[in-house]
């Protein structure tokens, strides 16, 4: 049987595409409301801290960050190829490493909350 690592990179991409399709617009809307001075109740420090302190919320946040960054990385990789950058292995290494680094940072901050 042919060996391929495609499902490994493509699975989180599809999951990330789905989770960002469902969640990212409303998350942006929430921070946009906060930016415009109509701050949602959740953005009060005590409430946000209490929310992010729960282990289930930490897990959910880390998962959303990982899947969002991974699907971004995968699309960036394809777009680089489309724009004539043919060093795919290098591009793939940089973008996937970036996604993992971002996820690691978020896990580190979540542990400190």
């Amino acid at each position: 049987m042919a060996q391929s690592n495609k499902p490994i990179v493509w699975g989180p991409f599809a999951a990330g595409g789905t989770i960002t399709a469902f969640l990212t617009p409303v998350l942006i809307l929430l921070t946009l409301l906060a930016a415009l001075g109509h701050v949602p109740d959740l953005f009060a420090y005590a409430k946000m801290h209490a929310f992010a302190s729960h282990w289930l919320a930490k897990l959910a946040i880390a998962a959303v960050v990982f899947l969002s960054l991974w699907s971004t990385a995968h699309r960036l990789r394809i777009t680089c190829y489309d724009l004539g950058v043919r060093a795919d292995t290098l591009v793939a290494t940089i973008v996937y490493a970036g996604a993992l680094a971002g996820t690691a940072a978020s896990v580190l901050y979540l542990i400190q909350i």
Partner: protein
Amino acid sequence: MPYVRTIPRVRWFFRHPRYVRYMTREVTCLFIGAYTLLMVWGLRELSQGPDAWRAFLECLASPASIVFHVLALMFALYHSVTWFNLTPKALPVQRGEDFIPDGVISGAHYAVWALLSLAILVLAGAF
């Protein structure tokens, strides 16, 4: 020598509106990725205490941040619409001899999206 059609390396996607729409969809990832990094930064500030969190909210209110948010919202919506419109192709459901119509599958996704967004807005106390 085989014939190799020459394609401009970068500007090929201006040749057809379909290619432009494809590229627009691909570019949405830049905004979604940047917004996710903004979330990671927010987590960092949240972990550093109330003062850092207040400063983060003040940064959010800057004009550059508002412009970014509006652009990111438009691109994120474009991603959602293109993604849900593809769901009938990705998840075809067969009932007996026939496939469930495309509109039912994508429509179900749109309905869940709307309800989920509304629920999150209510739970976050945006109203």
